[in-house]
C-alpha cells in the first residue's frame, strides 16, 4: 500500500496535448475516481500511472519511489481493463498466476495466493475453466483476481464495469467497494458513470480537456462545486443554468434578476460583491425545487418522466433554455400546462458566464 504523487504530468499524442500538466496527491489507501466526459484524458492519465504510456514531462511517484520511467511491471501497480484482457489460452488459475510466474514467485506460493484471491472473489470452482467458458461478471472477477494476487501497492481500474449489464454493474460496484474495505489498498478508478464515482470514491477528480477541474469528496463536489462544469457534471439530472444580471448590491447581499423571468429577483449572499449590471449564471439543481420555497418560476411543462418514486418535468423558458424540475412525484403536474416551480435563494449557485467559475 502506498500513496501516489503526480507532479506537472504532461502527455501529448502526435503534437496534440492531451494532459496539460496535472498535479495530484493521493493518500495511501484512498479510493480515487477520475471522472469526466469522453476525451477528457482520464484514461490516458490512468495509463500514464500504469506505465502503458510514456510520461513526457513531470513526475510520478508511488510511495517513496519515482516510477516516471519504470516499466509497467516494476511499478507495483495492477490494472483491471474495461475489456477484461484475460489470456484466452490460459485457465482462470493460470491467468491469475501469470503475473507471479513472470516475477519468479515459486509454484507453491503462486497456488496459495491464487487460492486466497479465488476465495475472496468466489472463483474457487471456476479455477480450471478457460475465460471463454465464463460469463461477463465472472470474467471481470478473474481480471480483478489477477490484480489482487500480485498484491500491488496501487490498483488501477479502467472503466471496469462498462461492459456489464445494469444489474451486474450494481453488484460488481458493491463488490469493488467491499474489496477496497477489505484490502485497504490505494485504488484509482476511471469511469464516466457518475453514480459509480459518487458511490465508490473517497475523493473524485473531475477532469476536462486534460486538466483537473476540481478534486474533492463526492459530497463536496455536489454541495460546493468550484465551477459550472463540475456543478453540471456531478448530480443527475444535471444542474439547471439560467442567465442572470446583477441589479443591486447591499453589503454581503447581491440581487440578480433572471433574464428569462423578467421580474423575478434572487437575493444571494456573496463574499465578494459583484458590479451592478454585470452578467452571471444562476445554477439550481432539479432536486432543489421545493413547493414550499419562496422564489417562484412559472414555466410550461413539455414532458414528464415519471419513474414512480421520483418524477422529472422537462420545461423550457421563454428564451428556450431547458429547465429540469424534480416534481417529487406530484401527480397534479400535467404535460402542456404551466407549472410553478419554487426554490430558495440559499440553494442557488452563481457562476461567471465567461470563465464558468463559481462566484462566491
Amino acid at each position, binding site marked *: 500500500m502506498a500513496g501516489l504523487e503526480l507532479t506537472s504530468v504532461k502527455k501529448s499524442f502526435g503534437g496534440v496535448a492531451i494532459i496539460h500538466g496535472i498535479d495530484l496527491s493521493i493518500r495511501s489507501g484512498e479510493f480515487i475516481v477520475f471522472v469526466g466526459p469522453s476525451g477528457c484524458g482520464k484514461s490516458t492519465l490512468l495509463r500514464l500511472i*500504469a*506505465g*502503458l504510456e510514456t510520461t513526457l514531462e513531470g513526475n510520478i511517484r508511488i510511495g517513496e519511489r519515482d516510477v516516471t520511467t519504470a*516499466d*509497467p*511491471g*516494476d511499478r507495483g*501497480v*495492477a*490494472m483491471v*481493463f*474495461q*475489456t477484461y*484482457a*484475460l*489470456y*484466452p*489460452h490460459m485457465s482462470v488459475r493460470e491467468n491469475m498466476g*501469470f*503475473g507471479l510466474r*513472470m*516475477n519468479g514467485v515459486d509454484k507453491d506460493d503462486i497456488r496459495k495466493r491464487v487460492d486466497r484471491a479465488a476465495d475472496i472473489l468466489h472463483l474457487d470452482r471456476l479455477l480450471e475453466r478457460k475465460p471463454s467458458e465464463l460469463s461477463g461478471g465472472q470474467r471481470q472477477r478473474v481480471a480483478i483476481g*489477477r490484480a489482487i494476487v*500480485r498484491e500491488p501497492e496501487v490498483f488501477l481500474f479502467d472503466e471496469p464495469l462498462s461492459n456489464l449489464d445494469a444489474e451486474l454493474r450494481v453488484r460488481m460496484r458493491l463488490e469493488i467497494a467491499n474489496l477496497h474495505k477489505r484490502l485497504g489498498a490505494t485504488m484509482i478508478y476511471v469511469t464516466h458513470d457518475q453514480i459509480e464515482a459518487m458511490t465508490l470514491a473517497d475523493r473524485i477528480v473531475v477532469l476536462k480537456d486534460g486538466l483537473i477541474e476540481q478534486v474533492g469528496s463526492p459530497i463536496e463536489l455536489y454541495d460546493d462545486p468550484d465551477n459550472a462544469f463540475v456543478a453540471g457534471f456531478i448530480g443527475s439530472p444535471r444542474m439547471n443554468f439560467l442567465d442572470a444580471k446583477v441589479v443591486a448590491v447591499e453589503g454581503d447581499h447581491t440581487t440578480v434578476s433572471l433574464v428569462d423571468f423578467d421580474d423575478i429577483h434572487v437575493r444571494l449572499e456573496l463574499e465578494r460583491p459583484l458590479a451592478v449590471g454585470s452578467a452571471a449564471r444562476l445554477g439550481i439543481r432539479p432536486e432543489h425545487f421545493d413547493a414550499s420555497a419562496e422564489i417562484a418560476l412559472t414555466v410550461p411543462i413539455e414532458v414528464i418522466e415519471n419513474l414512480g418514486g421520483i418524477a422529472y418535468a422537462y420545461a423550457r423558458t421563454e428564451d428556450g433554455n431547458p429547465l429540469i424540475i424534480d416534481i417529487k412525484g406530484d401527480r397534479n403536474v400535467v404535460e402542456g400546462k404551466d407549472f410553478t416551480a419554487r426554490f430558495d435563494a440559499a440553494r442557488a449557485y452563481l457562476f461567471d458566464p465567461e470563465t464558468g467559475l463559481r462566484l462566491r
Partner: protein
Amino acid sequence: MTDRQKQRLLHRSIVTLAWIIGLLMFFPIFWMILTAFKTEQQAISTPPLLFFEPSFDNFLLIQERTDYTKHALNSIITSFGGTALAMIIAIPAACAMAFKPSHLTRDVLLWMLSTKMLPAVGVLMPIYLICQKFGLLDSRFALVFIYAMINLPIIMMILFNYFRDIPKEILEASRMDGASTFAEITQVVMPLARGGIAATAFLSIVLCWNEAFWSIVLTSSDAGTLVALVASFSSPEGLFWAKLSAVSTLACAPIMIFGWFVQKQLVQGMTFGAVK
C-alpha cells in the same frame, strides 16, 4: 417452375460446375500419378490408356539410378530449415510492427512485399557470385538462407495480419504482469496466434519445397532437392514420360502427405481471425 425450384436448380448447377472445374484442375495431377505406374510404351500410346496393369518398375529404376532419399532429405532440410529461420526472424518483427506500429509501418510492409515483385533472375548474378566466393555452391546452408529470405516478406505480411487480430489490451495486461518482451511473444502472442503461425509455416514449407529456380541453379549432386531431381530427369536422354511422372509423383508425395496431416491446424489457422 416455382421460385424455390428455380433456386434449387441454380444451386445444383453451381455445384456441378464447381465439381467440373475442380476435376479439370486435378486431372493433370491424376494423369501424372497414373502415368507413373505405366511402362514407357503405355505412357505414349494413343489413344491414352486408362486401364492397364500397374508396374512399379519406374520407381525402382529411379532409386537405382539416383539417390531419392538424399534428395528428399535435402528437400526436407531446406524447406523446414528455411521456414524455421524465416519464422525466427518474422515472428518478433511482425510483433513489433503489429503492436508498436509507427506511421511508416504500412510503407515498410509494402517495401518488403515489393521485393517479391523483383524477378529472381534479376539477382542471380550477385547471389551466384556470393555463393561461389564463400564456397556455398551446392550447399544446403545457402539454400536454407535463400529460402528464408525469399519467403520472409510473405511470412511477415501474413503474421502481421494474424497478430493484429490479437487485442492490444491482452499484451498490455501481460506488460502490467511484468512479462518481458520475450515472454510476451512466447507465452502470449505465439499461443494466441498458434493456428495462424502453423498455417503460415506450412505455406512457407510448401513454397520452399516447390521452389525451382534457386535449387536448380545453385545445387547439383550434394544439396539437390527433389525439384532438382525432377529437372534432371527431363533433359539428357530425351523425355521419358513414365519415369518423369514417377519422379514427379515422388517429389509431390511427401508434402501432400504432410499437408494431409496438418490440415486440421491449417483450417483453424485460416479461420482464426474470423472467430476470435
